């Protein structure tokens, strides 16, 4: 039996989605002529501004394309479901947003994305467009702390994109934008948990199996297995386990400031997310950590997967400044 989806044809789902996005957000984004998988901000390019190109597989909406807009990403290269975009749309995005000050690629650390974005960067170099890359590696479940460069990028993308987009929007130098992107990534820690699988539009079959009372800690945002599988726990126990692991890495001190993201992987509703957040807030308060801002909702999803992730973004003055910088995107506004 196939899973139920409101689609027309699995093979056309991504392109039809993009038509719907363009129809809904004409003031924020456009598709490049001849390159429909290149979604570019209305206001881009801006001369002298570092261009920020994000991208990755589809199925994580509002990540990545929802973060295209003023003050955040200038363009997004859109891949098939859970598949990196090929180099072409990435190249077109970079050309379209190049303001002469360099183009920054920021995306999640996955083999496929790295190969495709690197191929794009090589080809852009031949056109004298300077590209630098900052990979997001916030998923603390995906490799030990001393191998941070091997970690996946998951919901914490949100904070890295936000900081980087702000830096670019403020016309900081290429070096500064890159430095801030790396710092934002270093300051971001995420872990997720999955309760039920999603299914790809092309197969409409659950992409993994979980026992009726099981959950998977550390689940990736494409249904890749996480770190441990065990019986379903309470919201408080899940929040505690995640916060404990994040604290173990972030090593917070009293008086620290953080921003929080409690993210649904798809079908976990706001009620459950806010219950998680109530525990997160309590843990932060108990540790003497100040919460500067909190986002709760669907920010980095895996289609209709059930589950959630918690991200802490440790702030210093600069990162807080970037976080508070206003942005106005297709699917996200802040500041």
């Amino acid at each position, binding site marked *: 039996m196939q899973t139920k989806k409101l689609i027309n044809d699995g*093979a056309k789902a991504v392109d039809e989605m993009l038509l719907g996005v363009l129809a809904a957000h004409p003031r924020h984004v456009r598709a490049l002529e001849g390159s429909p998988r290149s979604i570019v901000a209305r206001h881009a390019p801006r001369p002298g501004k570092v261009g920020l190109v994000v991208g990755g597989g589809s199925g994580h909406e509002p990540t990545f394309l929802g973060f295209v807009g003023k003050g955040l990403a200038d363009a997004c290269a859109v891949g098939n479901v859970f598949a990196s975009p090929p180099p072409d749309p990435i190249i077109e995005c970079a050309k379209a947003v190049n303001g002469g000050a360099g183009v920054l690629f920021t995306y999640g650390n996955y083999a496929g994305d790295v190969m*495709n974005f690197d191929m794009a960067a090589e080809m852009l170099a031949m056109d004298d467009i300077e590209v630098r890359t900052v990979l997001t590696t916030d998923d603390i479940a995906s490799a030990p702390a001393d191998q941070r460069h091997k970690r996946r990028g998951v919901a914490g993308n949100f904070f890295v994109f936000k900081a980087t987009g702000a830096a670019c929007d403020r016309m900081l130098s290429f070096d500064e934008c890159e430095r801030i992107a790396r710092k934002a990534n270093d300051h971001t820690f995420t872990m997720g948990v999955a309760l039920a699988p999603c299914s790809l539009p092309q197969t409409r079959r659950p992409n993994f199996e979980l026992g009726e009372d099981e959950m998977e800690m550390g689940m990736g945002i494409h249904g890749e297995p996480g770190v441990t599988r065990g019986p379903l726990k309470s919201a408080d126990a899940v929040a505690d386990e995640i916060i404990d692991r994040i604290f173990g890495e972030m090593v917070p001190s009293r008086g620290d400031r953080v921003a929080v993201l409690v993210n649904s992987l798809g079908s976990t509703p706001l009620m459950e997310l806010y219950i998680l957040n109530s525990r997160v807030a309590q843990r932060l308060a108990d540790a003497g950590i100040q919460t500067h801002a909190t986002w709760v909702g669907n920010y980095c999803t895996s289609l209709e997967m059930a589950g959630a992730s918690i991200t802490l973004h440790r702030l210093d003055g600069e990162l807080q400044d970037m976080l508070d910088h206003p942005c106005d995107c297709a699917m996200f506004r802040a500041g």
Partner: protein
Amino acid sequence: MTTIDTARLVAMFAAIAADISADRDRLCALDGVIGDADHGIAMELGFAAARDAVAGLDPAAADPTTIFNTAAKSFLNAVGASSGPLYATAFMRAGAAVKGKAELEDADVVALFRAMAKGIQDRGKAEAGEKTMIDAWLPAAQAMGDAAGAGTDLAGALAAAADAARAGAEATKDMIAGKGRSSRLGERALGHMDPGAASAVTVIEAMRRSLAG
């Protein structure tokens, strides 16, 4: 000894596409266990695009290099993902390896396999034993070269390549992954065949049938 003309290569891409399409759901299921469940989709899309693109070339004007370069480009743009750059690079290197030839002779087929394996390795930086498609492609290319070097005919060499690919894919079950999505799984990847190695067996087997005169 017969040579392989562009029509045979076009037919080869059609054969791979057909076999991969038939294999799609198994490959997705394998990828579901240790990855993101889309490998069959990516491969099906990629080879369907390659098949259509090479079928659309003017057979009179196209040489083998054009065939492979066209396949590379269309595969890449249809897929992205990991498979896209890996197979696209494999085909670009295949195209370079047979540059200037109008038809392929036995030795060219050996070179082609070697170039494809090398291309995948250059692009993905995977070593043997890291539980990737390389663990099917490297032994296949190696076995093919060894067999040809030992005087085996093309059909025999291709059969040796296919056997080696199968054994290599089987061996990925006992590996911990060093590259790709499953590299974050550690021991949990043990016991499961790498989907990219599994699809490599299907690709190589279809190539064997198409190229073994």
